């Protein structure tokens, strides 16, 4: 078990390293010159050259890569000259993602500020997805071949086929513009306001997953309800809801957990579009801005954060399998 754990953690670290390196290479071999973008189109060549030197962009790519990677994670106390320290410290561990070209702030600080809004919407969306998926899927499977089942299947198909920006605009139009139940966009000042504003983005982000998981749970439950042990439970005279929720749904949750873990990447992609529609000051908006402004360090930071989340989710899924199914550990 320990060996399996170490191997999986090792591969996860490798994957994150590979993603970061790939992004670094792609971003640095592209013809765009960040110094030119910062200086503006009218700048004198001397100024562009000065900015290039300031940012260390005149160094060869290998040197820049080594500098970035060695600063990324380090151990030890902060440097004596703490004035331009751009690292985030957790005890002796220091994570340094550099300084934003345009905002002139440490990337860790920008990410730290954008993370709470994104987490708020992301967690709410995840909750919507799993709650709707588990409830709708069970309902449809129990009433197989009924109008309810047929309607659920049709609805899930609609949910799967509507891109995030369409559902977002539709919800915004219906619930914010017509009914005025929720704010049109923005983040809000107080916690209550923020929660209120988070409802529409969370629904938008959660809708696709809700439809997808309903489908998954339904198909899974239909298979499970035909199993012998379910017939046994019914024959014992067990109440139907106990049979469904205690015996069948428990076994349908495992594939659900897997898919939730694996679809983290999709959630991340959806967050970019959703935050753009609702002007939500989260990681998605930060990344769109960074790309438009060619802010290399911020792009690198966002990619690192996103890929870490995805890799961690996959790791958790694998480990939960290993805990629940001893056969996995031996392979």
């Amino acid at each position, binding site marked *: 078990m320990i060996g399996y754990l170490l191997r999986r953690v090792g591969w996860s670290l490798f994957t994150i390293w590979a993603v970061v390196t790939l992004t670094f290479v*792609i971003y640095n071999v592209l013809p765009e010159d960040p110094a030119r973008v910062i200086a503006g189109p009218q700048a004198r060549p001397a100024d562009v050259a000065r900015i290039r030197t300031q940012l260390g962009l005149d160094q060869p790519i290998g040197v820049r890569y080594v500098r970035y990677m060695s600063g990324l994670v380090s151990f030890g106390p902060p440097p004596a000259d703490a004035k331009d320290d751009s690292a985030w410290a957790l005890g002796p561990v220091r994570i340094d993602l550099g300084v934003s070209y345009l905002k002139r702030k440490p990337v860790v600080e920008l990410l730290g500020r954008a993370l709470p809004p994104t987490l708020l919407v992301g967690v709410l969306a995840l909750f919507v997805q799993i709650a709707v998926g588990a409830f709708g899927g069970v309902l449809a499977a129990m009433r197989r071949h009924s109008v309810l089942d047929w309607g659920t299947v049709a609805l899930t198909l609609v949910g799967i086929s509507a891109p995030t920006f369409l559902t977002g605009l539709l919800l915004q139009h219906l619930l914010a513009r017509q009914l005025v139940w929720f704010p049109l966009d923005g983040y809000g000042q107080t916690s209550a306001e923020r929660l209120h504003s988070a409802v529409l983005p969370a629904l938008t982000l959660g809708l696709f997953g809700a439809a997808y998981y309903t489908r998954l749970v339904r198909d899974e439950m239909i298979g499970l309800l*035909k199993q012998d042990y379910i017939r046994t439970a019914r024959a014992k005279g067990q109440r139907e809801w106990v049979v469904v929720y205690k015996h069948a749904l428990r076994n349908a949750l495992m594939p659900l957990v897997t898919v939730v873990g694996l679809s983290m990447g999709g959630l991340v992609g959806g967050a970019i579009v959703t935050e753009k529609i609702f002007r939500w000051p989260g990681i998605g908006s930060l990344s769109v801005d960074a*790309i438009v402004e060619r802010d290399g360090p911020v792009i690198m930071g966002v*990619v690192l954060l996103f890929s870490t989340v995805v890799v961690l989710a996959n790791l958790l899924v694998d480990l939960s399998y290993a805990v629940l199914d001893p056969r996995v550990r031996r392979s």
Partner: protein
Amino acid sequence: MWDDRATRRFFANKGASVGLVLVALLLLFAILGPLLSGHHPDHSDFEQGRDALGQLAGSSARHWLGVDHLMRDLLSRLAHGARVSLLVAFVATTISIGMGAIVGLIAGYAEGTRARSLDNALMRLVDVGLSFPYLLLVMAIGAAVGETTILTILLVLGLTSWFGTARVIRSKTIQVRSLDFIAASRALGQSTPLIILRHILPNVAGPLIVIASASVAQMIIAESVLSYLQVGLPPPTATWGRMLQEGQRMYTATPRLVVAPGVLIFLSVLGFNLVGEGLRDALDPHED
């Protein structure tokens, strides 16, 4: 694989038939639409103006669906948007399915043999690919190259989306490889590439077709998302995502500028999803 029974199952499925009709209508619209409207999609018609309330000209005999904010014919732009969407979706899917099939077949065939390190390496690559926030990658490349062409979009979408396919085809290949007729053809001295092409590929073609159909739907979404975020094809090229984004500003005055491309995106994606599900059920019927 595909036989008469599968065909019958496919057409007995109401959803699949609806999907097929939607896809056929979409193709027809993309081919005939530009001819029907008779207007250039990027040319403004300056004889059209706004009325006293600032409203854009609605539908008329000259412009069947009216004009957009730059007085360009809406029908013509929608039809050209359909061409872009379908072209991108089909070509990117071909690239993605081709890559996924090649990598999946090779990795699956190498798994557990002397060449298993090849399988390991390929699957690590797939792991990395699946952890990559591809939307960010696409946007970064699009923004940095400056002028995004249809080729950039095709390559980026095609080359970042084959990882899942490779995983599925790999596990399918491992199943097929252990069957007796593969051992038999190996005993007869057939070469490995020939076995993969002639015996394994036809047996994994079913899932491949199903994935391809769903992938076309995903590519239509991806292209429209890129256009919507303004990192897709640059203006004035008509794409549904950009039309939607441009129409959004005048949504209250002229909702049709948003509704028309939105409905088209939704119906196209729905059509290909329905066909994909029909194919899946026809190829792999779950008895009940």
